[in-house]
């Protein structure tokens, strides 16, 4: 009974002081909006990251040219290379490697009849690519050792390429052009979707040597290596062996930094989770401060409200309100104020999340506010209302009815 009455009074008071209520709850609005906006975007990113890295597993190692080292001293910066010969050396001299593939990536238009399409990338790879990347073919077969050795003019394509070229139900055996190179489709990869802004299904795979012929020697001087160690425990040893070998081959004196990068799964995950936890920490800080400010604002406005309504409190006590009735009334008002802020923050945060996803060009997943975030926001707002409302409410409850009735 008193709860309902209190709720009615609280809402009436909020309406009566609309502007004051709005300004008071701004801290909470901002706090909750920040959380919700970041959560809605980070949720998507985390999802993406785990998608990508769960696929390749813990024994995965990636080697690429270190772009940063190209801007070296001197007028003509030396072109940093990672050549097919380097790759060959790694494969032959480093032990503990289970699967290994070179990757020579380039771009070329593909054509089937009159249909043309520009895939995201055309990649020359070795036959172990599908084991290294844990990416299987859906139909037909992947490139074989014979395809590689003979530089055969065959291609395995992603499902999106097959779709764009309208290869129909029987894509296998059809002749398409990659650039000006006629190749036969021997397989279609299984669909993997998008990850970290690239479409994994919009790719064409050629035998490494065939790609070299297509792109020319220059393009294949900067290959990437992807490999799987025999076990996750071997990853560090493999990485160190690759570094020693490549430093030796690139004749880097001691003290010069690497002109290549060896990235292991562990580090990738560390980088991503490090970034995400950094974001989370910053947002957590912002939220803590905003909630603190919002809470102090609520305490302040409730103290003002108690003073303004001293007489009302006196009247209520005179007609039979007990201390806890008054306490409850002002506590409910504080919580209603905080919750209103929390709900406004939820709406604002969701709006921001949608905006971020719309503005950022990368393929972010749609902003999504999980139910736990809604619950958490409302819970936190209510908690702030109770925590900062208890003092003013207690002050109101302890008022002496005689003094309160005399108050001008």
């Amino acid at each position, binding site marked *: *009974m*008193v709860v309902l009455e209190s709720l009615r009074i609280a809402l009436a008071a909020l309406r009566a002081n609309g502007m004051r209520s709005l300004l008071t709850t701004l801290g909470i609005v901002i706090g909750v909006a920040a959380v919700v906006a970041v959560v809605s975007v980070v949720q998507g990113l985390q999802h993406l990251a785990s998608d990508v890295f769960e696929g390749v597993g813990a024994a995965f190692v990636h080697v690429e040219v270190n772009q940063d080292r190209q801007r070296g001293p001197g007028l003509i910066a030396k072109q940093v290379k990672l050549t097919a010969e380097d790759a060959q050396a790694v494969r032959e001299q480093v032990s503990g490697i289970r699967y290994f593939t070179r990757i020579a990536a380039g771009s070329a238009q593909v054509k089937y009849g009159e249909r043309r399409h520009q895939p995201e990338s055309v990649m020359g790879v070795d036959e172990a690519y599908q084991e290294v990347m844990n990416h299987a073919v859906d139909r037909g077969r992947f490139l074989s050792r014979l395809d590689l050795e003979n530089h055969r003019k065959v291609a395995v394509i992603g499902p999106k390429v097959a779709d764009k070229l309208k290869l129909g139900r029987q894509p296998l055996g059809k002749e398409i052009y990659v650039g000006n190179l006629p190749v036969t489709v021997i397989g279609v990869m299984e669909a993997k979707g998008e990850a970290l802004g690239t479409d994994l299904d919009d790719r064409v795979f050629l035998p490494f040597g065939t790609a070299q012929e297509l792109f020319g020697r220059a393009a294949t001087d900067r290959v990437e290596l992807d490999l799987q160690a025999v076990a996750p425990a071997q990853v560090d040893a493999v990485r160190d062996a690759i570094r020693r070998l490549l430093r030796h081959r690139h004749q880097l004196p001691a003290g010069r930094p690497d002109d290549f990068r060896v990235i292991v799964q562990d580090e990738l995950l560390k980088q991503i989770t490090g970034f995400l936890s950094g974001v989370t920490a910053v947002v957590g800080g912002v939220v803590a401060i905003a909630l603190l400010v919002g809470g102090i604002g609520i305490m302040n406005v409730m103290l003002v409200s108690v003073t303004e309504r001293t007489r009302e409190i006196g*009247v*209520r006590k*005179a*007609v*039979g309100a007990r201390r806890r*009735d008054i306490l409850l009334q002002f506590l409910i008002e504080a919580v209603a104020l905080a919750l209103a802020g929390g709900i406004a923050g939820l709406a604002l945060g969701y709006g921001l999340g949608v905006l971020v996803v719309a503005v950022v060009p990368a393929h972010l997943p749609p902003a999504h506010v999980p139910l736990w975030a809604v619950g958490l926001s409302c819970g936190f707002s209510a908690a702030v209302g109770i925590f900062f409302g208890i003092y003013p409410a207690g002050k109101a409850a302890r008022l002496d009815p*005689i003094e309160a*009735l005399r108050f001008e």
Partner: protein
Amino acid sequence: MAALIDLAAVFKIYDMGAEQVHALNGIDLRIESGEYVAIMGASGSGKSTLMNLLGCLDTPTSGSYRLNGTAVEELDDSQLAGIRNREIGFVFQTFNLLPRTDALHNVELPLIYAGLPRRERRERARRALQRVGLGDRLHHNPNELSGGQRQRVAIARALVNDPSLLLADEPTGNLDSATSIEIMELFDQLHAAGNTVVVVTHELDIAGYAWRRVSLRDGKVLSDTPTERAAPAAREAPGPTG
């Protein structure tokens, strides 16, 4: 039969730092159910303190106060709130209505704290307002009502829980003389209907509406006499002791 109000050797002493103020200095007072009593006195005579005690807003420093058989001096804060809710109907000089709240809801207020269901509250509040002649003003806010109408709403609020005591503190202090007469006539009607009415005032003509006049000075009862209005029937009733 025990009196409705029975004050015996009541002292109220305020500690004002160095000195003690004896606001009430040994009051003995009995008021029977159905009486209409005016409590008079200059400011500083202790009449406000006495009213606060009678209204269970405060407890005596020493002495005993029985209201309808309950020893008020033994009650704690929340029990005092309960007895105010059940036994007392307050009428204040400044009306003390809740702003931005319509007449009906203002009158409902004591019933909310009595824990009555909404339907019953509404019905009783409506009847109380009809009784004071405001049946057509149920949904007016106080700022839409005249002073006399506001005091009528306050009286309806005081009546709504059928209290054993109507306690009015300078009920006409903020009203013009014509409206004052209307309000005092309303108290007359309520008294005639069987309500016990205690009016605290410093105005003689207002006190003249009562049937018995208790005058205070320096925290003591100076005089306690029936007024000229007292009918023979009232004179035969058990007289005041003290």
